[in-house]
């Protein structure tokens, strides 16, 4: 399937070798996409097209996969990724209100990124510290027993 696509994304030598190594093996797509996301933090359109070219598979197939699994991100995440836990315990303790308040405060939807690239917002399932519910994780930092009205203050600490 010859294509004359010009893609801008440059893959590292390591990533290219990885793809070459897995190219002919069945079930390789998700593994390769994981690797792409770990290199760039997300899967850009041009990265997806480059994978399509290298594996000689349709772009439609790649988008089917990356939009199916929540793990894959299609947009560049913000400098600080806010993860609001919506696992059972956090949900019951008001996770939704935290998520709503954060979205309102930053004026972005869930899965969105602020215009300045500082924050992106995600809802996640259990992060494994239900005793602290409701939980918000920003970067590597875990915030427990969060109240919605505390969010602006918490976020202010990340605003530089």
């Amino acid at each position, binding site marked *: 399937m010859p294509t*004359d696509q010009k893609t801008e994304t440059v893959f590292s030598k390591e990533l290219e070798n990885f793809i070459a190594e897995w190219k002919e093996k069945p079930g390789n797509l998700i593994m390769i996409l994981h690797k792409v996301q770990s290199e760039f933090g997300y899967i850009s359109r041009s990265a997806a097209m480059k994978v399509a070219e290298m594996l000689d598979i349709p772009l439609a197939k790649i988008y089917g996969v990356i939009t199916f699994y929540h793990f894959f991100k299609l947009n560049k995440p913000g400098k600080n990724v806010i993860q609001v836990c919506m696992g059972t315990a956090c949900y019951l303790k008001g996770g939704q209100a935290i998520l709503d308040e954060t979205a309102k405060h930053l004026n972005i939807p869930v899965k969105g990124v602020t215009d300045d690239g500082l924050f992106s917002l995600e809802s996640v399932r259990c992060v494994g510290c239900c005793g602290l519910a409701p939980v918000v994780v920003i970067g590597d930092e875990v915030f427990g027993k969060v109240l919605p009205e505390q969010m602006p203050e918490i976020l202010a600490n990340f605003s530089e």
Partner: protein
Amino acid sequence: MSTVNIQINGKPITVEKGTHILGAAKQAGVKIPSLCAHPDLDAWAACGICVVKVANSRGVSPKLVRACATECVEGENYITHDPELNKIRKTIIEMILADHPQNCLTCGRNGSCELQTLAAEFGIREIPYARNVKNMPKDDSTGAIVLDPSKCVQCGRCAQVCQQLQNVWALEFIGRGEKTRIAGAGDIVLNETPCIKCGQCSAHCPVGAIYELDETGKLLAAIQNPDLTVVAQIAPAVRVAIGEEFGLEPGEITTGKIYAALRAIGVDTVFDTNFAADLTIMEEGTEFVHRFTEKKDLPLITSCCPAWVEYMEKYACDMIPNFSTAKSPQQMQGAITKTYYAQTAKLDPAKIFSVSIMPCTAKKQEIKRSDDMFSSGYQDNDLVLTTRELARLFKQFGIDFKNIEPQKADSPIGQYTGAGTIFGVTGGVMEAALRTAYSLVTGDELPNDAVDFTAVRGMDGIKTATVDVKGTPVRVAVAHGLKNVQTLLQEVREARENGKEVPYHFIEVMACKGGCIAGGGQPYGTEDEIRAKRIDGLYADDKKSEFRKSHQNPDIKKIYADFLEKPSSHKAHKLLHTHYVPRPTYKK
């Protein structure tokens, strides 16, 4: 052939091993309702409406299985209809309706929608579930087909047909669960995907989620404009299908009725694309003989099908030198309408409005595909209507199509031969070309009992034959349904890379399974049984023709004598030939 013995509702039946329950029930004369299953496609088990009971199941209650995706098991008895199954089916339909917009009256499929039919048959009077209709924008970027994802019932037919039958991969589902939606590949508008506008998605969609762009209003506006002379052409495949919209059998030849009905709605002059099919054979046949004798740029590959042309430009541009430079019949007809016909009729070409009636949605896009489509100095074809659109117009004008008195086409570019008419079926272009190429190579006429090249007929996805042209073997191949073309191209590439002789001298490709008779713009419900009848219709039209070779068409002889000089002349090249360019598979 091994078989299995089963029962459908207690009645014994023997079916081929591997048959699904849905197919077995059909053989037993029992109709199981379904929204997603389609005989052209593998079962996808998406809708669940075809659920049946396995009567001999162990356990408390009988096992429920989807009839479309479950193979018959020896000795089983399948219950296809009972009050409980009825209730399950009704519930599923109600749930689909809860997610479905209810603007049926203004929907492209109003009156032909499979969901609407099911809702009517099951007597749905209210929807007992919360409504959850998603409002998503329509995508009419292709100018040929419209994608309305809000109406999608996620049956998967369009994506399957696009990916598996056509190998185009322009459509795919995006997201998961409740948020799943159908979208262009990579979630961009269709015109920027690899879409080739073949319209098979629109022909297979059970509802109004993908349909042809309706342009009937443009024809009516032209008819209403007193300054314009409206000139129509009709493609071969239209004549054996449009009757289905008026209760005639598939395959019934309605050529004269279409001419008459077109005049009845106000078209001034009626020509036939079959004439230009004969003209295509003169040009392409000459091109073939030239390349064959010079052993240059072989195999010659046909270029009549615009969906195939776009596929090649996007996916196989290394084949560009092999493509016939001859335009498609539609484009040839348009070019000579605004030159030769304009001259003979003493009309200003600027005041001719040329409309073509096609079985095809890709033809809508072909009329503007490059500057070559403006060879007359004007846009050679102004408008393309599909068979479905024309049928609607005839209905709007109250035309009694079944009983309308047939008429003849106008002169001087309306007469056609049997070779022209079989352009609408897979293998037909090849057969027509061989009939004329034989004469061009040998100087002799094929006797009338030898014009049928049956080896290139039929529904096999790939057909190959070696034709003996007075001692010279000519190797030909025919593919239809684009998934089949890759095999042929690969053979050509391998021979080329290894410096071997080409496996074929001449290849015909049509994008749609069965050829234009099953094009994306044809009446709904196309499946192999109907394909076969339409194909028989075209071969019958060929058989009853006075002339069966393009070069014998008196109007063709006349146009070369009076206007075009000879095939492949300078003038013919200017008006009747084109060129191809590699195109990006994805625009974004």
